[in-house]
Each structure stands twice: as structure tokens, then as C-alpha cells.
């Protein structure tokens, strides 16, 4: 009797699961056919990206942004994308006459997203570097980044040349700040910390005279914490942040470049800064951070 019951249960499970397998494979098959058509379409044209006309025709542009890097790209409590990059993305979509479809990307997969055509453009705080230029095409820049130095307000460090080996500088290991200081100021003493939190504690405890980090980070730190001041807002080589498109997507690249140039006339990125960055970085540094019309000095 007990065995019969077990058998019945097993039989039922088998039938249900077979049904589900069938359902599963039929949806799989359906998606395979759609995939096959896309494959055929892309094989014809032999390109992974969509041209400007194709984007306009579809009525939607796929934009890869950060969804957890406040204040550049993040999601607010209503579930809407916000931030400096997103503000520009919305304007870009509006001027192209299409809807912006935001895709949440990570720092590690931004290039892959472009190379497989899963997004049309990346607007995720993407720093222009020579290595990346080989993989993707960058449009004109819309922001500057470099290093910065923050120190206690009662003893502000305004020039690294004034320091001696007895004035230790705080850096986070593995950052561009560390590399830059080792190369350019080999005689200065560095105190290296593994995490942001440890470096912050070290500065607060007075272990070093100043903290060298990305200038956005030090500006944010100074505006969030009483009693600290950014003595040097730009240090070392200036890098830029720019939109990126799939390598070879010339029409879209030209479209974005024109857009950035025309936005320069209305000082759009100053307005963007006002709306999204001013609470984090303060109004004093707008000209250090913002690039208008793609023109860097």
C-alpha cells in the first residue's frame, strides 16, 4: 500500500516534470529561432553596433550607465536613474528624438557591453585611456579627472614641493595616486592603506599631513567632513571622461560629438553640475571638473 502511494507520487512528479521540460524546451526553441534571425541579420551587415539612423528608427537608444555610483550614475528611491552621466544621457536621447533605455553596467564589463553591441553608448564615468582607445571609440570629453590633495584646514598643504621626507602622505594602495607619487616625488614618504575607510581614519588621526586620491574623492571628502580643505584640486596628468561607442560606429560617434559641441554653447554641463554634483563637490570646483563643448585646455 505504502509502495503504491509512493509510486503514485513519483508518477505524478514525472508527468509534471516532463510537462515542464517540454514547456522549457519549447520556449528555448522559440528564442533560438529569434536568435537565429538576429544572427542572420547581423551576418548580412557584419557589424555588432547600430548606426545612428538605426537607433533613430527603433525609437530607443540603449545607454550603459552605473546604477550604484552616486553622484554620477545611481538609482533614486523612486527607482529612476539619476546623476551627472544620466542627466547628459537623458538630454542626448531627447535631442536624438528617442527614448533612453538605461542598462546597469559594472566597471569591469563596460567594454564588453560595447563590443557585443548590447548597448549603443556607455556613459558610465568612463575615463579615456590609451588601452581603452584600442577597444572602443571615445567621443569628446565632458569631464576632467586628476588627483587632488586634502589636508586638515589648520595646516593646508598647497604644494607638494614644500613637503619633506618627515611629512608622510596618505595614499590607498594600488591607486593612480600611489603610482604618480612614486614616479614624481620619490623623496616623499608614503603611508599606504588598503581601504578607503583605513585611509580616512589615518587622516583623522593625524598619521599623515595630507591624503592624495582622485580629486573627485578628496573634494567629496572635504565637503562631507568639517575641518578639512582641498589644498590642491588638480595634481598630475589630467584625464578626461567621455562617452564611448562600439569601435567603428562612426555615425553615432559623429552624432554625439556634434551634440556635445552644441551643448557647449548653452553651458549645458555647468547646469548638469549644478543639478547633480554641486551637493557633493561644492560650487568652487565646477571649472576644474567640467568640460564644455569637448574643449580641454
Amino acid at each position, binding site marked *: 500500500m505504502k*509502495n503504491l502511494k*509512493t*509510486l503514485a507520487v*513519483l508518477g505524478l512528479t*514525472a508527468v509534471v*516534470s*516532463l510537462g*515542464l*521540460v517540454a514547456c*522549457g524546451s519549447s520556449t528555448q526553441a522559440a*528564442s533560438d529561432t529569434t*536568435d537565429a534571425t*538576429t*544572427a542572420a541579420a*547581423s*551576418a548580412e551587415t557584419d557589424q*555588432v553596433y547600430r548606426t545612428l539612423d538605426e537607433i533613430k528608427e527603433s525609437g530607443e537608444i540603449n545607454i550603459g550607465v552605473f*546604477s*550604484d*555610483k*552616486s553622484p554620477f550614475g*545611481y*538609482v*533614486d*528611491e*523612486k*527607482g529612476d536613474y*539619476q546623476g551627472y552621466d544620466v542627466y547628459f544621457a537623458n538630454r542626448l536621447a531627447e535631442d536624438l528624438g528617442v527614448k533612453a533605455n538605461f*542598462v*546597469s*553596467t*559594472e566597471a*569591469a*564589463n563596460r567594454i*564588453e*557591453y560595447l*563590443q*557585443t*553591441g*548590447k548597448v549603443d553608448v556607455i556613459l558610465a564615468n568612463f575615463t579615456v585611456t590609451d588601452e581603452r582607445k584600442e577597444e572602443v571609440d571615445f567621443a569628446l570629453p565632458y569631464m576632467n579627472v586628476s588627483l587632488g590633495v586634502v589636508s586638515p584646514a589648520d595646516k593646508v598643504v598647497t604644494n607638494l614641493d614644500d613637503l619633506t621626507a618627515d611629512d608622510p602622505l596618505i595614499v590607498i594602495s594600488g591607486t593612480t595616486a600611489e603610482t604618480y607619487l612614486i614616479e614624481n616625488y620619490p623623496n616623499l614618504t608614503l603611508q599606504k592603506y588598503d581601504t578607503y575607510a583605513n585611509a580616512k581614519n589615518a587622516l583623522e588621526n593625524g598619521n599623515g599631513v595630507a591624503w592624495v586620491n582622485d580629486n573627485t574623492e578628496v573634494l567629496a571628502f572635504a565637503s*562631507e567632513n568639517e575641518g578639512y580643505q582641498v589644498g590642491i584640486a588638480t595634481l598630475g596628468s589630467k584625464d578626461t571622461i567621455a562617452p564611448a561607442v562600439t569601435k567603428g560606429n562612426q555615425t553615432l560617434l559623429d552624432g554625439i560629438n556634434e551634440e556635445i559641441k552644441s551643448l557647449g554653447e548653452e553651458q549645458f554641463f555647468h547646469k548638469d553640475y549644478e543639478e547633480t554634483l554641486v*551637493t*557633493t563637490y561644492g560650487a568652487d570646483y565646477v571649472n576644474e571638473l567640467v568640460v564644455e563643448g569637448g574643449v580641454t585646455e
Partner: protein
Amino acid sequence: MPDLGLDVLWKGSNLLRLLGGLGVALRISLIAVVISIPLGLLLGTLMTGKNVILKFILKLYLEFIRIMPQLVLLFMVFFGSTRMFGWQPSGELSAIIVFTLWGAAEMSDLVRGALISIPVHQYESSEALGLTKVQTYCYVVIPQTVRRLIPLSINLITRMIKTTSLILMIGVVEMIKVAQQIIEANRTTSPNAAFGIYLVIFLLYFLACWPISLLAKYLERKWR
């Protein structure tokens, strides 16, 4: 009580978004479970069969999936299929494919293990008693195998649910990603929110996995 920054959960629709993220994670893992368990049962049974070529292919499949980290598999399906074949599977579909392949592979090995754990003398006794092959499987082997499989497959299912935390890397916004979004958006106003939000996530994962463990316990007792 220390400030855990839990107030951010009540801002706007944050709590609903977090639950929605859990929904995405559960949807993907459960669809994969429902497809991969029967598939694993089938493959596992085939692995104990006599066909050497089939066994070799299945073994190769199992080892490949087991050696590859899940993240690599996700990238291979999501980005690799576009590079190789020009397919554009959505992030969710890619995740379901990977989790199904993974679940089926691990399940098949569990099934194989459970099947060969039935001593040979039981088969021989059944034959001596005059049971046919089908009867032997239905009355003797399968009931014992299923009982042995329950705790193992529950372990696999809960692991599949928890591993959905990786799929944020292929752009699927699930619970962990929503949590990171909430924490980051409130970085300046409630810097402690990370503790509170991750505590809530812990509770939510627990609430999702616990009923499955309870069900397993119930079945184990019932089929003893």
C-alpha cells in the same frame, strides 16, 4: 541599538524595489531548478548505464560545468554567444540557461551517486524474487534513491538561489544590485545603511531558503 540606517528602506519605494529584486532572483533560480532537476534525473540515470560513449560525453559535460566558475559561464553565454553567433540573449535568459546547465550537471552526479549506492544484492534479490527490471526500479531502487536525493538536491537548490547574486555582472538587476543602488544613493545621508540593508538581505535570503529546507525535512520524514 546602533544606527543601522534602516530608515532608507522606507524612503520612496525602496523596500518594494528590494523585494522586486528578490523576485527576480527567485524567478530565475526556480525556473532553472524546475527544468534542471528532471533533466538531472534523466542524465544521472544515463550515467549509470552501459553506453560508454554516452557516459564519456556526460562526464565531460559534468566536469566542464563543475570546473568553470559560474561567473565565467554567465559571461560565456551572455557575451560569448553574441561574439560567436551574433545571438542577443537577454541577461535573464542567459542566467536561466547557465543555471539550468549547472543544475542539471550537478543533479546528474547526485543521481548517479544515489543510484550506485544501492547495493548490487538488492538487484539480485529482486531478480531472484521474479521482479522484472521495471518493477525492480519502481519498487526497490527509485524509492530509496529519491529519499537519499532529497537532502542533496535541497542543498543544490539553495545554492542556486544564493548564486543569483552573480547575475548583476550581466546587467540583471536582482536583490544585491538593488541593495547596492540603495546604499550608494544614500551614501552621504545614511552612511550606516550598508549594515542595515545587508542584514535585511540576509533575512530575505533566509526566508526564501528556509521553507525549502522545511519541505525537505517533511518529505524525508514522510518517506522514511
